[in-house]
């Protein structure tokens, strides 16, 4: 039944990639999108008018490849991501800290450890007051994301994401030393 895919599919190929502790990072360079992927990404852009498109759709890398492989390749397995977080010295941003540019936004499926997505905190924006006056003092992280291995890159408010609010949990991670309380 799946013989066509076995015969016609192109062999997965990756590049040499390791963590800081020199553990190999399995990866695959992704192909360009098909028509279905382009349609769906276009629909998402329409549904999220607050997204700022930094780069049009492209293949090669996914969100993890964007974050940890300089856009050179795609990384898929959760176990690999966990190894990178550990080997490269990442830690969750503590409750008394605020995320900073360069930190990571890691999204997990609500109530589980499964990772949905990772993006890079690229801006910290003040939230305007309700009456349109000066900023209320609340700062919000804006994240640069590539949603999968075919989409473009978008800058978005950290909670303006493709999943319902109840379906995900967001935690920021950093490689900075922890600040004193």
């Amino acid at each position: 039944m799946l013989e066509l895919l076995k015969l016609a599919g192109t062999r997965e190929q990756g590049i040499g990639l390791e963590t800081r502790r020199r553990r190999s990072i399995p990866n695959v360079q992704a192909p360009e999108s098909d028509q279905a992927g382009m349609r769906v990404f276009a629909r998402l852009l329409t549904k999220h008018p607050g997204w700022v498109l930094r780069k049009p759709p492209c293949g090669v890398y996914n969100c993890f490849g964007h974050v940890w492989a300089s856009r050179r390749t795609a990384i898929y397995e959760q176990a690999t991501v966990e190894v990178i977080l550990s080997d490269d010295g990442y830690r969750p941003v503590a409750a008394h800290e605020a995320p900073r540019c360069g930190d990571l936004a890691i999204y997990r499926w609500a109530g589980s450890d499964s990772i949905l997505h990772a993006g890079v905190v690229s801006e910290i924006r003040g939230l305007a007051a309700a009456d349109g006056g000066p900023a209320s003092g609340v700062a919000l992280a804006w994240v640069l994301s590539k949603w999968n291995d075919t989409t473009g890159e978008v800058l978005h408010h950290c909670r303006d994401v493709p999943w319902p609010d109840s379906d995900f949990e967001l935690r920021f991670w950093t490689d900075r030393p922890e600040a004193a309380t």
Partner: protein
Amino acid sequence: MRLLTDVFADEFLESTFAIATPEALREVLRVAKEVRALRRALEEGVLTEREIRDGVAASFGDFRPNARFSAEVGLAALAVALETFPAPFSEGFLADLAAIRAREMPMAPRVAALALRHRHALLAGTTFSEMVFPPARPASWDSGGERLAQPVPAPTQIDVFRVAA
């Protein structure tokens, strides 16, 4: 069959579009209404092996070498639906899908491998006495033939796969 068409449609692709790991995709698919509908149809004998084969074959029309095969999410959905279905066809489908390593479809084979692992763990953790199979299994599951005239009678005891699902 509409249930199969649903998991290969743009709307379903959109609901799973921004999920980067096969682990998360499997968890999302397990609770997706489309996959639950597939599982129910399998259990009730409404969805046959022949229809699955035809639906999978139809999805290949969009496959192009060296281009991302977005319809693979439908294959991943089938894998999750079949994960807990006690038929030889399920095991074969999961194993065949898990064995594929094509850059056009990186996620479905990895989801199938996870499904297979969970399926085997479920079986390993269950004694024979706890396994209760439906009293009549559709002949179509072995022969790829036509749908039964009557639906499969509901089991009188809970079988391990139904509990797992």
